């Protein structure tokens, strides 16, 4: 864990209100793993007060990439950063995806901005495994496929790709993967993760999901980010420390 002020390299508007921010930060770029996150102070002032958590979207050499949409005031301020502006980063934080292990096909399932951690996951898996990616959104505007491989898309309104949810899309294509040793990587809204979990349990698939929770600190001191544990109902996991990536069997979604 480091706290470091690093200069913006580039701010790119990928799509309407969706941004990619590249920050030159070799210290963190060198050690961060897919699924881990950063807690970012978007302003030096007291407004907004708290840091904002963002998954590492990709690492390009010394550069950290974040992908985000303008949600509230904090992300709006972040979208206005220019080359050279210093960003106050706390990271790397949390536990990321485990990309090692006994599988030959990585299936990535992302909903909306839940796609954010997957470019880096894709890069780090590289060519060691097959990768299939399913990305869904409400409309074509919410489908972001930046930095991903073998992508199929789904939209609720059918405006791009399959008409339906991304989990339904995955189900409809599931037979293609019969016989391969799969591992599923999921990230997106809770409802999506819940239906992904159901499907993975029904089909006995290994699955890791990245979860979200409102956070104050991001590194375990505030107890602000509980998530129910399946095995230990008497206590919560902390999303920021024990997660944000969990084996889908370990948490109640």
């Amino acid at each position, binding site marked *: *864990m480091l*706290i470091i002020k690093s200069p913006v390299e580039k701010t790119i508007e990928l799509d309407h209100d969706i941004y990619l921010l590249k920050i030159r930060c070799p210290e963190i770029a060198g050690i961060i793993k897919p699924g881990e996150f950063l807690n970012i*102070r978007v302003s030096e002032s*007291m*407004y*907004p*007060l*708290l*840091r904002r958590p963002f998954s590492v979207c990709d690492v390009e050499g010394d550069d950290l990439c974040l992908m985000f949409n303008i949600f509230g005031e904090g992300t709006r301020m972040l979208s206005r950063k220019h080359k050279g502006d210093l960003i106050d980063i*706390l990271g790397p934080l949390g536990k990321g995806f485990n990309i090692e292990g006994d599988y030959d096909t990585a299936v990535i399932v992302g909903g909306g901005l839940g796609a954010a951690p997957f470019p880096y996951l894709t890069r780090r898996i590289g060519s060691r495994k097959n990768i299939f990616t399913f990305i869904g959104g409400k409309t074509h505007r919410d489908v972001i496929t930046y930095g991903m491989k073998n992508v199929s898309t789904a939209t609720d309104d059918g405006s791009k790709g399959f008409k339906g949810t991304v989990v339904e899309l995955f189900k409809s294509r599931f037979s293609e993967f019969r016989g391969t040793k799969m591992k599923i990587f999921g990230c997106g809204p809770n409802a999506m993760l819940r239906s992904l979990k159901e499907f993975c349990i029904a089909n006995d698939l290994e699955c890791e999901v990245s979860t979200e*929770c*409102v*956070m*104050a*600190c*991001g*590194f*375990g*001191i*505030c*107890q*602000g*980010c*509980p*998530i*129910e544990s399946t095995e230990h109902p*008497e*206590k*919560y996991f902390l999303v920021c*420390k024990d997660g944000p990536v969990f084996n889908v069997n370990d948490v109640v979604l």
Partner: protein
Amino acid sequence: MSKVDLSVNIGPLKLRNPILLASGTVGYGNEISEFTDLNKLGGIITKSLSLRPRKGNPPQRIVETPAGMLNAIGLANVGVEVFLKEKIPFLKKYDVPLICNIAASTIEEYVECTKILTEEETIKAFEINVSCPNVREGGLQFGNDVSAVGKITAKVKAVTGKPVIIKLSPNVSYIADFARAVKENGGDAVSAINTLVGTSFNIFSRKPKIYNVNGGLSGPAIKPIALAKVLEISRNVDIPVIGSGGIMDWKDVVEFMIAGSSAIQLGTINFIDPSAPGKILEQLEEYCIKYNISKISDLTASYII
């Protein structure tokens, strides 16, 4: 050696400097030790401990507000037993005064917790939380009832020889009355303030953002209120005050000391910048040097009114 005497006394408790880390904002010290050298701090106050482990409230527990935040953690903690077994060993590695914060739903539970913990020599003092707004039983009710606060003080003092600090609720009209009750019942100091009761709604779902409905407001938003409470106690009751509420930098520390604090606690700032405690300490020393303040404790209650 430093030219400035940063040491302060909180009644019988001697600290090498006035910077304490506030209960509930540093867990049990592990994580923050990566950013701030615990060996340099005045002291560290644990997350509130209860007799038995508490799971705490379901999410959402945190809401950001203008210059502040609401929390309703619900006193999630490992309980005194696990604390002694699993958390104390880490803290023992440091030379930092450890203050145990205790929360309970009955007077008996406060007493019981204190009895168990007082045996542990690493613990230098107790801070009794009678003012947590986030648990239904106990908590707030005690904190807003002068005679209950007096009784808790007396009963806890009866079972420990260590200094007892009572952490007061700001959700009262005249906080000095509570400080007086603490003093009259043998308490050694008071902490002021804990969080203020607040809430926030999602205007589309019409539900409270916080699962527990209400949360406790902390951060810079409450600083003027905290300062007024510290001043009120300082002007009316002869008892050491540990100030807290929205302290973000060394200037705020000085302001709280001028208003009557013998020491201060850093809370919400730790979430935003966990290296702040160390930095603030350095800046405080620079300030003392620059303005020829040879003993920082001279700042306490140095207001000119």
